[in-house]
C-alpha cells in the first residue's frame, strides 16, 4: 500500500469521525434547545393564566379604587415575595369592576393611584391614566392593562398569571375590550 493511500484513508477516517461528532452534536442539540425554550413551550402547552380570587367583594367599596394582591399561580418555593403580585381594583358601581395591572403600559413601572385627582401616575417616565385606565398623558401608547374578571360566591376573581407587557396580544385584547365597556 502506498503512502498516499494511507493518508487518504486516514483523512477519510478523520472525516468519518467529524461526521459522527456532528450527528451526536445534533442529537444533543435537540434536548438542549428544548430545555432552553421551556418557558416558551410551557406557555404554548398549558398557558400561565388561571382564575384567582382577590377576596370578598366587601373589600372593594363602590366608587373606589383599591390595591389588591394575589399569589401568582405559577410559583416555586424559592420565588419568595416576588410571587406576590399587586393590582388595582376599581369598583365602578357594585356590578361593574375594572382590575388594572400595576404595570405602566409604557415600560412596566408600578403606577400609583391618586384618589384626590382621580389619576394613576407612573413614577418612572411620567405616564398618567384616568380612573377608567385610559391614557391621560405621557409616553404610554395605550391605557392600563386590564385583567378579565368574574364574580363568584361574593368573591372577585381575575384571570392572571403573567406579567403584562406592551407587546403581548393577550394584554392588548383585554385593554381593547374594556375601552368599549
Amino acid at each position, binding site marked *: 500500500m502506498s503512502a498516499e493511500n494511507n493518508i487518504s484513508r486516514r483523512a477519510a477516517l478523520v472525516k468519518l469521525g467529524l461526521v459522527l461528532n456532528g450527528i451526536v452534536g445534533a442529537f444533543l442539540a435537540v434536548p438542549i434547545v428544548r430545555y*432552553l*425554550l421551556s*418557558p*416558551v413551550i*410551557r*406557555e404554548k402547552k398549558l398557558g*400561565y*393564566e388561571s382564575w384567582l380570587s382577590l377576596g370578598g367583594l366587601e373589600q372593594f367599596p363602590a366608587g373606589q379604587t383599591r*390595591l389588591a*394582591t394575589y399569589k*401568582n399561580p*405559577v*410559583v*416555586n*418555593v*424559592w*420565588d*419568595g*415575595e*416576588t*410571587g*406576590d*403580585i*399587586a393590582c388595582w381594583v376599581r369598583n365602578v358601581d357594585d356590578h361593574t369592576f375594572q382590575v388594572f395591572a*400595576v*404595570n405602566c403600559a*409604557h*415600560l*412596566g*413601572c*408600578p*403606577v*400609583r393611584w*391618586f384618589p*384626590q*385627582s*382621580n*389619576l394613576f*401616575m*407612573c*413614577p*418612572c*417616565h*411620567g405616564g*398618567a391614566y*384616568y380612573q377608567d385606565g385610559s391614557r*391621560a*398623558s*405621557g*409616553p*404610554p*401608547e395605550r391605557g392600563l392593562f386590564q385583567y378579565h374578571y368574574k364574580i363568584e360566591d361574593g368573591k372577585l376573581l381575575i384571570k392572571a*398569571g*403573567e*406579567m403584562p*407587557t*406592551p*407587546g*403581548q*396580544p393577550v394584554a392588548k385584547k383585554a385593554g381593547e375590550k374594556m375601552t368599549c365597556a
Partner: protein
Amino acid sequence: MRMIQKLANWLDLRLQLGAPIRETLEHPVPRETASWFYVFGSAALTCFMLQIVTGILLALIYVPSAGEAWSSLQTLNHGISLGWFIRALHGWGSNFMVAIVLIHMVQVFLFGAYKFPRELTWMVGVLLLLVTLGMAFTGQVLRFDQDAYWGLGIGASIASRVPVVGPWAVNLMLGGPIIAGATLSRFFALHVFVIPGLLIAFVGVHLLMVLKLGINEWPMPGRVVRRATYLQEYHELTHKQGEPFVPNAVWKDILFSAFILLSIAACAVYFGPFGPGGQPDPTVIQTSPRPDFFFLWLYALLSFLPPSAETPILLIGPAVGIIGLLVLPLVAGEGEKSWKRRPIAVLTILLVAVTLGTLTHLAEHTPWSPVMNAWSGEPIPQEYLQGRTALERRGALVFQVKQCHNCHSLDDKGGQRGPALDRVALRLTEDQLIRQVIQGGGNMPAYGKNLSPAETTALVAFLETLHPTNQKPARNASQAVALGASEVSPR
C-alpha cells in the same frame, strides 16, 4: 538565590515559556507610545481582574435565589466581616471599568487606532464594550432590590415590543411568566458564567492582536495610513526608533493601574457599597425605580421619545449604533489618523458626550416625572395668598387638593412635568385657562370630570392672580369689546 535559579530552570525546561514571555515583554514599541494616553487599556484589564477576584469573593456568600438574595446581601453588608467592603469594591470597580472602557474607546477612536491593520482589534473592542455593559446590567439585577425588580420589568417591556417574537422573548428573558426565582437564576448564570466567559475570550483575542500587530503609533498630522505601505512604515517606527515595551512604556501602565485600584478602594471606603435598596416585593408600589449611573441616559431618553416613534427607535437604534461601530474600520480603514486632521471625528465625540451628559443630568433630576408628594408636602408660597379674595384662596386649595402641584411648580417648588405657573395669567386668558383645565391637552390630563363647576371657577380665579404686580394678565380684547366699555381695562 541559586535555589530559585535552579527551580526556574527546572520549570522552564518543562514549560518552555521563558523565551516567549521575554520576547513579548521586550517587544519594541514606537517611542511616543510610552505615553499617559496609552494606559487605559491596561487599566480596564486591571479593573476586570479586580472584578473577577471580588466577584468570586461575593459568590462565597451570595445566594442567587429570589427569596433569599436580598437577605444574603444584607448579611454581606452587615453580618460578614468587611463584606460591605468587598461589595463596595465590586460595585465601584464596575463603575470604574465601564468608565475606563469608554475612555479607552474614545482615545483609540481619536488616535485612529481602528485603521488598517487593526480593524478587527476595534471590532472585538466593540464587542468588549457590549459585554462590559452586559456585565453592568446583569450585575445590577443580582443586587436584587426594588430597582432590580422593576428594571427587569422595563427590560421585559422593551423585549416585548420586538415584532412577532416579543412575548416569547419576554418569557425567555424572565424564565417564566413573571419576574421571579427563575429570572434571578438565569441572570446569575449570565453574570457569572456566560458573559465573563465571553469577556475573557474577547480580551484574549484583543490582547493577542495588540501584540501581533503592535500598538498603534502616535498619530502625526500628514502621516496617512495606506494599506500598501503601512506595515513597512510601522516596522521602521518600531525597529529603528522603537523602545522595548518593558520597562520603557510599562511603568506608566503599572503606575496608572495602581492609581485606579487606589481610587476604587478610596471610593469603596468613602461611599460604601451600592444598596441594596428596598426588598424586591412587587406589592410595595411606593417606589421610583432608577437604573444605575451608566444607564441613566437611556432612562431619560425613554421619557422624551414621542410614543409613536419609541418602539422603532428602541429596537432599531441600538442595532444601527452597534453596526455603525462595527463597520467603522471597514469604511474608514485608511487615511489620516491624527485627530487634528479629523474634525468630524472630534465633533462626533463631542456630540455624543454632550448628548449622553445632558441626558444623564436630566435623569438625575427627572423633570418629566410628577413629584408625587408635592400636593401635600409643598405649600403654596405665602405671597401668592396674601391679599387674595376668599374665592381665590379656595382656588389655591383646589390647586393643592387636586394635585396640580405635582406637575406644576410655584416659586420653583413642585413638579416640572408641566410648565411653571408663577406667571400663567400672562400667557392664558380666563377662558383659555378654563378650557385647559377642563379639556387638558398638550400632555395634561383633562380635569373636566374631576372638578365641580365651583371648583373650576375657584381654581381659575386663583390662576388668574398668578402674574407680576406690574404686568397685566392676558385678556381677550374682542370679548371685552363685546361685553361693553366697562369691561375694557383703561390703558
